């Protein structure tokens, strides 16, 4: 039987160390909603999501009360809309009507984000993919809860550089379209390489076409718990450090597994995966950067950061994998700048640059995340940053992503306030040298060789 010290430990994690379930994400296939008539399509989408997801929020709240663990977000992901709208949408404006339907349905069922306004173009774009991508600035500026993602490369296909070039401009246009709100539209747009089909975390969640009709995916959190556990082993060697992270990750993930199974049972929808990510929030003590500091760095970004992050990420996976029957999604440590107080401090202290962040993304999930850059950055420069990150993912057979925010009207030294879980960010300097000729070549980068790993 459970003893009192175990009960106290669990409740301390929840009450003092910000242990929570970050999201229960309900993936819904919209493939059966496809119709050549746009109005009918929108109606089908609305009806399907409202019927499948009607109990999502109430079930989330019930689980929260029953186990006494906060479930921060209840969210929905859908099949990439470029596919769903392909036969009905003749223009980008047509696609925007679907975005508005998704926004409305999110409001109706009470979720704070709905992901899947997406296109998968890792080899090349269809005309409907391109229409959707071109509609993103308009869609994200006219909706509140819709999240968009574009997968522009994979290890198997290489990188679609035409899409990378287009997205650079789209990021800038999205920033411009939402400039009255510190370009927040870009916080809801992720560019991926090797995007997973079952990611529960926004803004990059979508319900892949390899998935079933509906599925429950759960993302756990808990950087504060890992940090507290490491405080008890200060000065100990790497073996002790790694064992401590592994044990903690196991405990955190077990909670995610429990919540996922309960939600699946109550909703009558199959359980998909638990995403093992350490997801920070702007709250004090809920920071991945603070774990790196606890491991022994003055700030995230100091020499040793990539190694520390690599070991952290690996131990989280090792501990977590045993705790859950199915692991998937992004699974690793997130290093968003604006959503992590320790990362913000590191940038403000001058310890962390975009280039160091890029190195860190080689060893952890996911990529350059919630990075604010000057609003006058050129589209080709943004495309160049995206291409670099995609290349890291392609060559290393991992997911990488870019969620970058050129804040219109702001420059290095300014601060941007996004609010809520998105936090605030100092605007970071970008390398000024030109990559126009590289981006303007057009075409695609071939798939990499899978031998001679050096």
């Amino acid at each position: 039987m459970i003893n009192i010290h175990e009960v106290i430990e669990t409740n301390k994690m929840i009450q003092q160390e910000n242990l929570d379930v970050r999201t229960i994400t309900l993936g819904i296939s919209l493939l059966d909603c496809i119709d050549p008539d746009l109005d009918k399509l929108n109606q089908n989408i609305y009806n399907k999501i409202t019927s499948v997801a009607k109990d999502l929020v109430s079930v989330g709240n019930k689980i929260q009360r029953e186990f006494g663990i906060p479930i921060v977000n209840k969210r929905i992901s859908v099949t990439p809309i470029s596919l769903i709208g392909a036969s009905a949408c003749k223009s980008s404006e047509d696609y925007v009507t679907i975005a508005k339907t998704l926004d409305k349905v999110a409001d109706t069922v009470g979720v704070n984000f709905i992901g899947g306004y997406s296109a998968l173009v890792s080899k090349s774009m269809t005309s409907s993919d391109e229409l959707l991508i071109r509609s993103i600035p308009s869609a994200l500026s006219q909706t509140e809860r819709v999240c968009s993602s574009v997968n522009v490369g994979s290890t198997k296909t290489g990188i679609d550089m035409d899409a990378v070039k287009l997205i650079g401009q789209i990021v800038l246009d999205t920033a411009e379209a939402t400039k009255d709100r510190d370009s927040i539209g870009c916080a809801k747009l992720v560019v991926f390489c090797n995007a997973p089909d079952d990611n529960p975390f926004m803004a990059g969640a979508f319900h892949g076409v390899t998935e079933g009709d509906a599925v429950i995916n759960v993302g756990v959190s808990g950087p504060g718990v890992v940090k507290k556990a490491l405080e008890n082993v200060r000065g100990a060697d790497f073996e002790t450090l790694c064992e401590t992270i592994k044990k903690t990750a196991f405990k955190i993930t077990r909670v995610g597994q429990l919540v996922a199974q309960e939600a699946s049972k109550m909703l009558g929808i199959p359980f998909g995966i638990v995403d093992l990510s350490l997801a920070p929030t702007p709250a004090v003590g809920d920071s991945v950067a603070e774990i790196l500091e606890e491991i022994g760095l003055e700030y995230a970004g100091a020499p040793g950061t990539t190694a520390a992050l690599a070991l952290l990420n690996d131990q989280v996976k090792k501990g977590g994998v045993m705790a859950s029957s199915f692991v998937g999604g992004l699974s690793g440590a997130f290093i968003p700048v604006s959503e992590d107080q320790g990362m913000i401090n590191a940038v403000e202290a001058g310890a962390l640059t975009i280039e160091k962040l890029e190195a860190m993304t080689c060893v952890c999930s996911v990529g350059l995340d919630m990075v604010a850059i000057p609003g006058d950055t050129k589209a080709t420069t943004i495309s160049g940053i995206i291409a670099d990150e995609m290349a890291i993912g392609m060559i290393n057979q991992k997911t990488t992503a870019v969620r970058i925010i050129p804040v219109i009207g702001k420059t290095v030294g300014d601060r941007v306030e996004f609010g809520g879980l998105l936090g605030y960010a100092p605007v970071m300097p970008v390398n000024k040298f030109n990559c126009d000729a590289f981006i303007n070549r057009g075409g695609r980068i071939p798939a990499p060789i899978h031998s001679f790993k050096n």
Partner: protein
Amino acid sequence: MNRTVITVVGKDKVGIMAKVCNYLAENSINILDISQTIVQGFFNMMMIVDANDTPKELDKIAEELEQIGNEIGVTIRTQHEDIFDKMHRI
């Protein structure tokens, strides 16, 4: 069996156990195990109870116990045993 863990945390005083146990008896909830300890000067008490015979929903019981806690100045949490079991047992 559907077991529930009730924890009481706060400053020790007369009548905490009486209040909680009375409430449980009134609602046909059977106590299976009780333990207590002092952590950092705070009174910590844990009960494992069997709430299968109570007509009330666990939600409602949690809410009412929390209310009792507020009246006597302690924090009372009611949680399904599974969260502890999953976390601490392989």
